[in-house]
C-alpha cells in the first residue's frame, strides 16, 4: 500500500524477481541475462539471487534460445526467454511462429506452451536499421501468440507478472526509450485485468488509440490540444492480443472520431488493423475517416535527425488532430 518511485526497468526486474520467488520453476534464459545483468539492465543481479541454473546465460543462438524455451515450457518449466532486440525476432520466427504458436493447436489441444519471450524495440538510441524496429505486427499477425507492450511503470510490472501466469506463449515487447522513465507507483493496488485497455485520459472530441512509447507522445499532444479547446480520449491498449475492442468501440461511438498511433511502419501494421476494425465496427458512428499516424514505410537510419523523422512525435499527432477537428473549434 506504499507509493514508491520506480523506473520501468526496476519494475520489470521486480516482476521477474517476484515471479521467481513465488514459483521455483520460473527460469530466465538469454544472452547476457546473468553475469552482465541484461543489455538494458533488466535482469541485473538476478543471478546472485537465484543462481546460474535459473538465470541462464546463453551463447548467441537466438533460434535455440526460443526453441529451448518452447521445450522447457512443454515439460514443466516456466521459461522467460530474452531476445536482446526485437530486430532478432526474424531469426527465431520458426521457433516462435511454427512451433510455440502452433503446438497447442496442431497437437489437438494436448499441451500448451506457457512461455514468455521478453524483448525490446523502437527508436531513440541511434541504433540503426537493425536495432531500432517496431515489429509487433509480425507477432500480432501470428495466431497462437499473445502480445503485451507496456507503456507505464505499473504496467511493466503487472503485465509481466500476468504474462507469467498465462497458459499460452506471450511475447512481451518493452520500449528501449522507456527504461529510465520513473513513476510513483503502488504495486499493491489492484491492477487492471489482462486484456483490458486503459483509458488514460477522457475527452469528448476524439479518441486516440495507441500503445507503448507513443502513449506518452499522445498524452503530450492531448495537453497541447486541450490548450486549443480540443479534448481527446487516449486509450492505451496494453495487450495487442488479446485486444480489448469493446473499450475502443465504446469511446469511438461516443466521440465519433478516431486516430490510431503506432511507431511501427504504417503499411499493414498494427495501426492498419486497428483502423480497419474501427472502420468496420463503428462505421455508423464515425464523422470522419479513421486516421493513422504511424512510422514511415522505411528502415530506421542511424542519423539522429532521420531517425526522429521516421516515427510519429507529439507534434504530428497534435497537428493531425487539429486538422481533423478544423472548423469545429475556435482557431
Amino acid at each position: 500500500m506504499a507509493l514508491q518511485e520506480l523506473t520501468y526497468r526496476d519494475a520489470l526486474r521486480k516482476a521477474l524477481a517476484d515471479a521467481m520467488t513465488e514459483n521455483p520453476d520460473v527460469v530466465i534464459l538469454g544472452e547476457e541475462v546473468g553475469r552482465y545483468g541484461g543489455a538494458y539492465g533488466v535482469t541485473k543481479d538476478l543471478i546472485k539471487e537465484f543462481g546460474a541454473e535459473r538465470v541462464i546465460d546463453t551463447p548467441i543462438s537466438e533460434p535455440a534460445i526460443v526453441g529451448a524455451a518452447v521445450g522447457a515450457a512443454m515439460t514443466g518449466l516456466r521459461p522467460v526467454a530474452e531476445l536482446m532486440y526485437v530486430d532478432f525476432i526474424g531469426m527465431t520466427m520458426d521457433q516462435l511462429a511454427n512451433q510455440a504458436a502452433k503446438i497447442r493447436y496442431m497437437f489437438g489441444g494436448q499441451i500448451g506452451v506457457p512461455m514468455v519471450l521478453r524483448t525490446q524495440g523502437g527508436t531513440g538510441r541511434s541504433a540503426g536499421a537493425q536495432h531500432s524496429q517496431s515489429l509487433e505486427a509480425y507477432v500480432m499477425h501470428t495466431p497462437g501468440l499473445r502480445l503485451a507492450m507496456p507503456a507505464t511503470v505499473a504496467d511493466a510490472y503487472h503485465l509481466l507478472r500476468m504474462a507469467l501466469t498465462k497458459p499460452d506463449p506471450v511475447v512481451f515487447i518493452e520500449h528501449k526509450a522507456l527504461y529510465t522513465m520513473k513513476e510513483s507507483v503502488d504495486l499493491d493496488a489492484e491492477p487492471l485485468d489482462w486484456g483490458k485497455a486503459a483509458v488514460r485520459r477522457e475527452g469528448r472530441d476524439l479518441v486516440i488509440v495507441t500503445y507503448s512509447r507513443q502513449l506518452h507522445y499522445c498524452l503530450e499532444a492531448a495537453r497541447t490540444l486541450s490548450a486549443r479547446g480540443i479534448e481527446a480520449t487516449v486509450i492505451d491498449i496494453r495487450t495487442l492480443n488479446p485486444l480489448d475492442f469493446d473499450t475502443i468501440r465504446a469511446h469511438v461511438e461516443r466521440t465519433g472520431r478516431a486516430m490510431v498511433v503506432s511507431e511501427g511502419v504504417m503499411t499493414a501494421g498494427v495501426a492498419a488493423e486497428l483502423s480497419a476494425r474501427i472502420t468496420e465496427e463503428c462505421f455508423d458512428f464515425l464523422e470522419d475517416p479513421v486516421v493513422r499516424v504511424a512510422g514511415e514505410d522505411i528502415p530506421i537510419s542511424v542519423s539522429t535527425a532521420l531517425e526522429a523523422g521516421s516515427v510519429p512525435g507529439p507534434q504530428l499527432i497534435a497537428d493531425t488532430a487539429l486538422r481533423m477537428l478544423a472548423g469545429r473549434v475556435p482557431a
Partner: protein
Amino acid sequence: MYEADLRATAGQTMAGRVGAGANTRLPELYRTMRRIRTFEERVGELFVRGQSAGSMLHLSIGEESAAAGVCAHLRDGDSFTTHHRGHGIFLARGADPARMMAEIGGKEAGYCHGKGGSMHIADMGLGHLGANAIVGGGIPAVVGAGLSARHHKTGAVSVAFFGDGATGQGILYESMNMAALWGLPCVFVCINNQYGMGTNIAQATANPNLHERAAAFGLAAETVDGLDVEAVAEAAERLVEGARAGKPAFLAVSCYRFYGHARKDKSPYRDPVEEEAGRRQDPVAFARAALIDRGLESESELDRLDTEIGSEMDATIDFTVAQTEPPLASMFRDVYAPEEPEPEPVRARIDRVLARD
C-alpha cells in the same frame, strides 16, 4: 581459457626469425595497424565530444593484426563482409577514414549518407559488401559471392569477418558446409577476442578450439596468434590462395578486446589482472618493437610515421564535425531503386485523408 590460448609473448620480439629483413611486409603491416589503432582512438574521441551518432561504437583496438594480416592478401575484385567491429578491416582494404568517420557521425558525407553508421558501413567499390549489426548476419553472403566468382570465373575470393560470438550462430555452420561442399573461394575469419559482450568464449562453448569445427566440415582450418601480424599474414596467404584454388578455409585469430564492448561498457565483468595481461598482447607494439629490433625502421622514423598518422586521423574528426546532417527528405531515398517511386510519406497520406470533404 585465454591464458592457455595465447603464447606468453609480451615484451618479446621476433628478432632472429627466419627470413627477417628481406622482402618483409612488416613496415606496411605496421602502418596499416597503426592507422587502425589511431582511427579507433579518434572514434572514441568523437563519441566523447558528443559528435557520434549514438554510442553503439565497437572499437577493434587489440585486434588490428587480423584486419591487416588478412587484407594484405586480398586483391582488387575480392569481396568481404564484416561484423559490427569492422572499422579496422575496412581501413585495411583502403577505406577513406574521413568518409568512415563522417558515417560514424551520421553525416551526409559518410559512406552511406548517415543511414548506416558505424555498424553498417559499406563500399561496393572496395568490395565491402557490408558491415552487420546482426551477429553472423554477414556470413552467408560470402557463399553467394563465392558462387558468383565461380560462375563468372573472376578468380576472386570472398572473406567473412566475424567475432567469436558468431560461432554460436547456426548460419556459420550452414555457410561453411555449403562452401566446402561446393568448393567455393570463401574464407571465414573468426576474430576471437575472447569475449562476446560480457561472455568469455569459455562460457559460450564447451570446445573453444574453433578451427576444429571448420575442419569437420572439410575446410582448411587454422588458429593463429594475433599478437604477431606476420604470422597472421602468413596463415592468411596460405588460406586465401587455397580458397582461390577452390579449397575454402577458416582462420581463427586469437587476440584480446582491449576495451569495453561498446563505448558505454567499462567491462566490469573482467578481472583487471586479466585485462592488463590481455592489453599486453598488443600487436601494434609488438610489430613496432620487431621493426626496430630487426633494424628495419628506427624509433624516430616510426615516431614520425605515428605523428603523421595522428594528424591524418585528427583531420577526420574536423571533417566530420564540419559536415551536415542528411536532409530530412533523404530518408525516403534508397528504400527501393532510384528509378522506382519512393515510399509516400505518412504526412502526405494524412493530407489526402483530411483533404476529403
